[in-house]
């Protein structure tokens, strides 16, 4: 850490190789589109190196970086530019969950199903689901993070749950990747 703070390239690279995959994964799960995710990822990693001297080691470095990544994702989701492009979101969703979903060779069937199901949600709903279910944020904290009301968080979560439940209900014509 000390070497990385002093600008030692090898130390910075070591930190990058350990933390970058999980960081990009988190960002991609929230924002979906690869190009946008890489942009936010670049911002996040640059911010991490810039703020490294201020890191107080009260939490693991990975958890700290996760907070920065999450904050950057929310910044993107809240930006006026993105709000102006909201009408494109429906089109993006219509293109299917495959593009937004995150899969890689060796992925288990149920993971692929789940990633595809997440991919069907709008990025804002995905962020709310992820923050509530995985990161452990409360509705109040999510509402504060988005600058919205608590009922916004609750309704986003309820709608997302309903959508995910519908996705997992067996339907003709949709092939599941889950081995039964």
């Amino acid at each position, binding site marked *: 850490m000390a070497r990385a703070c002093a600008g030692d*390239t090898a130390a*910075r*690279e070591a930190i*990058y*190789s350990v933390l*970058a*995959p*999980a*960081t*990009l*994964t*988190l960002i*991609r*799960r929230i924002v979906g589109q690869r190009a946008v*995710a*890489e942009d936010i*990822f*670049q911002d996040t*990693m*640059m911010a991490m190196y810039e703020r490294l001297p201020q890191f107080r080691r009260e939490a693991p470095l990975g958890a700290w970086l996760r907070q920065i990544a999450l*904050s950057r994702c*929310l*910044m993107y989701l*809240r*930006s*006026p*530019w993105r709000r*102006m492009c909201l009408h494109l979101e429906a089109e993006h969703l219509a293109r299917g969950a495959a593009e937004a979903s*995150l*899969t*890689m060779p060796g*992925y288990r069937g*149920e*993971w692929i199903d*789940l*990633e595809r199901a997440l991919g069907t949600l709008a990025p804002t709903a995905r962020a709310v*689901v*992820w923050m*509530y*279910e*995985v990161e*452990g*944020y*409360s*509705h109040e*904290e999510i509402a*504060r993070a988005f*600058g919205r009301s608590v009922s916004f968080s609750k309704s986003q979560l309820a709608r997302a*749950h309903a959508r*995910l439940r519908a996705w997992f209900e067996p339907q003709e014509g949709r092939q599941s990747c889950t081995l039964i």
Partner: protein
Amino acid sequence: MHPDLDPQPPLAQLLRGLPETAARPYGFAEFERRSRERARGAQRAMPAWTLLAVVIAAGVLALSLRFGGRAPEGRGSAPAVEATGPPRLPAGEPATVVGTDILEQWLATLPREPAVVHVGTRAAVTGLEDRLAQVDDLLSVARVEQARPARLAALQQERTRLVGALLQVRYAETLVDESR
């Protein structure tokens, strides 16, 4: 954080079971290259912003000399925006939250898009709005983390500067629209 005393719902379990490193980021060398590129881009953007600010300020001055001052007779049907123009902070008043609130209220009265969209100014407006959203986010993080008053003041100052810049650009847009 919400209490996790209840048994985890299946969705949370499934989501938490997803692999943390499902996305492969580009290598460290590419990260460094992109970081350098961004730093260069930011340096290049500085003179462009300065030039844009000068052009806008000159435009505002020229238009206000031509159409400003006392409103001519018979223009009573003109929109309220034109009649009043942007509010001014009392001379000598420090840039405060209350002060920017007045400016933001005026900005909120403007139509989302001007009558004629100029690509250059639109880019400036969206850029400023994006930057404003970023500063808002930093401010809320700083407040939650109870950052030093100096940092809060610096962020607030930056916010005031951005609101001022946005106000100038939007005001110039309204003047140009009405001069047509």
